[in-house]
């Protein structure tokens, strides 16, 4: 019972930690102390919980997200592929291993409008660069892929990141 109680407390603390940091880490010399003060807990506990969340994958990393357009990565291609269902997981794992692929997922088709079940994002400083990268993906795909397209982004319409409510 006690363990369960503690675990419930930790879940509540973790949730408060997400709420307190989802807009960003405080830009002060002791950021974890600032969060701890806000939550009324010890800074060491804040660091421990963040470490736990990093270890179990709830936090992917603590770090910065650049606006890649501002860094010159103006070609942003979402490559979409119609891949044989029996082979998509094995091939997906290989494509996920390419260093230029930043996101890579299997998603549902919406036939007949949308035949694609595999998505891989490729970024470059030009469309030529993106197309060269997509060509490398196509080689790995071989005959498992029936067709593919690259959807280039024209405009960011909104970019706030994820938020959960209070």
């Amino acid at each position, binding site marked *: 019972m006690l363990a369960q109680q503690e675990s419930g407390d930790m879940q509540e603390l973790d949730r408060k930690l997400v709420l307190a940091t*989802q807009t960003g*880490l405080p830009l002060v010399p002791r950021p974890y102390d600032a969060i701890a003060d806000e939550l009324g807990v010890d800074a060491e506990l804040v660091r421990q919980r963040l470490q736990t969340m990093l270890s179990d994958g709830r936090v*992917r990393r*603590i770090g*910065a997200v650049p606006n890649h357009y501002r860094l010159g990565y*103006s070609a942003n291609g979402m490559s979409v592929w119609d891949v044989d269902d029996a082979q998509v997981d094995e091939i997906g794992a290989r494509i996920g291993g390419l260093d230029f692929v930043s996101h890579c997922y299997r998603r549902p088709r919406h036939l007949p409008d949308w035949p694609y079940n595999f998505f891989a994002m490729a970024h470059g400083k030009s469309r030529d660069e993106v197309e060269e990268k997509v060509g490398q993906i196509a080689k790995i795909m071989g005959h498992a892929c029936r067709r593919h397209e690259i959807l280039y982004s024209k405009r960011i319409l909104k970019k706030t990141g*994820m938020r959960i409510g209070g």
Partner: protein
Amino acid sequence: MESAPDTSLDDLDRRIINRLQKSFPLTDRPYQSVAAELDTTEQELLQRLQRLLDDGILTRFGPLFNAERLGGALSLCAMKIPPEKFDEVAAQVNEFDEVAHNYEREHALNMWFVLATETEHEKQQALRRIEQATGYPVYDMPKQREYYVGLYFEA
């Protein structure tokens, strides 16, 4: 989408952007140790980080959460909007707090956004409200499997 690389960034800015995309220390004075790695001071690092965020070179700095692992629901959604209606519908879709980001892409399916909610039920509700508000169907494409996620952009 065409935009010129930002020429206002100096060498230290670039090193800060590159370093901060990697793991940030869970220590008492994390900015101080990162500043030392970059041969600068904690104060300078904090000032520049604030400026990079204010200028929109960085969109975020902090823990990056995996929404599904937190128990939340997430989908990539697409819509097919006639060009003459596009801006109007984009404004309607962006009104929803559940829409985390939204891109215009060159395709018949020209609007692509990420929907993030705390539960699957809320996600389905948001999808329906967007369809009702705009009058256009939403193609729901939740990920069925993730093979890799790891963003890094050399500045």
